[in-house]
């Protein structure tokens, strides 16, 4: 006692960063840590991180369940990549796996226990119509039947409207770039595809620097920081491992970030990974930006029951994400259309 009580989300981050020993937690501290980890969809990630640690038996048993379930879920997710390949390969359409499925296919450290939602693939803009047809012929169908949403996606977004497979009930997002067309930043999609590399599983994935750029873009330039702790964990582990095998990695990352117009997002992601997970950054990366404080607060805004504690901050980031995605006049029109249709 005597010390201020450390919040559950801080304890969770400390455990991931290795700043705190699992054995040092009081039994009742686990509730909050597990609650936060579940809310961030990172319970199996924590379970992998603490595999073999000194844990209360009930926590160890829950973690073993989570690791086993995550292994099954990853197989299921990668099967979607295989089935997409079977649908697209006969037509000569190549695709690059993105996000969770890519990390799993490449056997990366951040894939351990990582939840994988929809299958995200990147195809050349020129192939997008043919890809759409091939997927429709192979059993995928549209999720949205709403003409405005459909129009909105096709006109402005960086992906086809989401499709779902009719018998496997799994979603696929077909992207032709990594940020919406209307976004102020327009990454070089052609470079992303043409410089992709083959993963251990034989699927194409982004090259290391592009993968880190996309991870940062997805977290900071596109999203409203939902799932931010997980995306930041991905970023931290991939940059750590890429730079360990290739001393020139950080330089390449800087060059690719410039090419895609993502320097701000990538540098902020690196600073946040340092601040939260203790990432070691090279000279020139380890600056300070007063605005990082708001990002840290947003990322750590969860109580011991896993609830978001700062709804206003959450909302501010939600509006920011829309602000970044589209020019103000269009945003107004979009929200107006959405509002009228209620």
């Amino acid at each position, binding site marked *: 006692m005597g010390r201020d009580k450390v919040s559950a989300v801080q304890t969770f981050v400390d455990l991931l960063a290795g700043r705190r020993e699992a054995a040092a937690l009081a*039994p*009742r501290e*686990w*509730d909050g840590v*597990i*609650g936060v980890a*579940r*809310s961030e969809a990172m319970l199996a990630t924590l379970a992998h991180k603490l595999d073999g640690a000194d844990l*209360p038996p*009930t*926590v160890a*048993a*829950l973690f073993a*369940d*989570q690791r*086993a*379930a995550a*292994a*099954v*879920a990853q*197989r299921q997710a990668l099967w979607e990549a295989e089935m997409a390949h079977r649908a697209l390969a006969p037509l000569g359409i190549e695709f690059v796996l993105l996000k969770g499925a890519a990390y799993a296919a490449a056997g990366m450290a951040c894939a351990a226990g990582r939840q994988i939602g929809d299958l995200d693939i990147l195809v050349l803009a020129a192939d997008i119509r043919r890809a759409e047809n091939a997927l429709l012929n192979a059993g995928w169908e549209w999720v949205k039947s709403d003409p405005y949403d459909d129009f909105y996606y096709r006109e402005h977004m960086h992906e086809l409207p989401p499709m779902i497979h009719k018998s496997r009930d799994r979603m696929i997002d077909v992207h032709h770039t990594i940020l919406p067309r209307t976004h102020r930043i327009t990454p070089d999609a052609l470079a992303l595809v043409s410089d992709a590399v083959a993963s251990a599983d034989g699927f194409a994935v982004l090259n290391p620097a592009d993968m880190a750029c996309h991870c940062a873009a997805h977290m900071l330039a596109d999203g409203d920081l939902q799932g931010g702790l997980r995306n930041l964990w991905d970023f931290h582990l991939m940059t750590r491992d890429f730079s360990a095998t290739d001393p020139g990695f950080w330089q390449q990352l800087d060059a690719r970030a410039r090419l895609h117009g993502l320097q701000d997002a990538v540098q902020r992601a690196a600073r946040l990974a340092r601040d939260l997970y203790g990432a070691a950054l090279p000279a020139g990366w380890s600056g300070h930006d007063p605005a990082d404080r708001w990002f840290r607060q947003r990322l750590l805004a969860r109580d011991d*029951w*896993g*609830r978001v504690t700062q709804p206003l901050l959450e909302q501010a980031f939600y509006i920011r994400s829309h602000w970044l995605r589209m020019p103000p006049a269009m945003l107004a029109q979009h929200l107006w259309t959405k509002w009228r249709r209620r």
Partner: protein
Amino acid sequence: MRHSTRIAVGPVQFRIGSDWPEPITALEQLYASYPKDDARSADATVRLLAARPWRRWVRPSVHIGGDFVVPDALPLPLSMGLLAAEMGMNLQVALGWRRHMLLHASAVARDGRALIMSGESGSGKSTLAALLGEGDWRLMGDEFTLIEPEGGNALAFPRAVSLKNEAIAEVAARVDAARLGPLIASTPKGDIRHLIPRADAIADMHEPARPALLLFPRFGGNAAIEPMGEGETFVRLTEASTNYVALGEVGFAALTRLVRETPAFGVSYPDSATGIALVEQLWAETK
């Protein structure tokens, strides 16, 4: 959260938090005789919360939250807080539990062997289990039965039995009033009243039982027994399991073993007495 409690049912330790004291008090009364281990970490978290801060006082309505949520679940009035808690606990188990294969089925045990009854709500599986559990059977659970993947044994999940509509009077006539919770009238599921399982069911809740008989009861119609093939039983149990797909090959192995080793029957019955007679008849035949 402002109010909270911890409850252990079978292998699952729950942590339940609430914006109001009433649901927590009601839960603690219902589960007072269950073993407690407050130092043990929770496997599942339920949150009963007000959708907007002022809804704690003004027409208070309870949203069911937790590790897993159903996006468009309607809130319940505070007077149905106990039902909200029950639904929240069921949801966490149905969507979150991974250690065992979960069957949406009731079960009772005798001599270390389990009778498992699977069916939709309205099939009478819950009432039959409750009534058998008042006789010389041990109630294992009225809602979920867990199958151990390695050994194939059934494990109990003896939550407070959720009696509905006509079953309330039928069971109330046979048990001590102290074992009944408050009547929750006119819920979206009809009238509901909880039955606290008998002391032996709670004391033995960690005792596994060998699956010996699988029944698919159907309330209504003439008394009839129909043997069910392995294939159909397999299909019906995959539909009755909320985590079969998530368990991967472990679930496949557990389920094929269960349907091969356990005789299965469809049973129609016009009333509980007939249902129980048919169950006892089949049980005697499978020995």
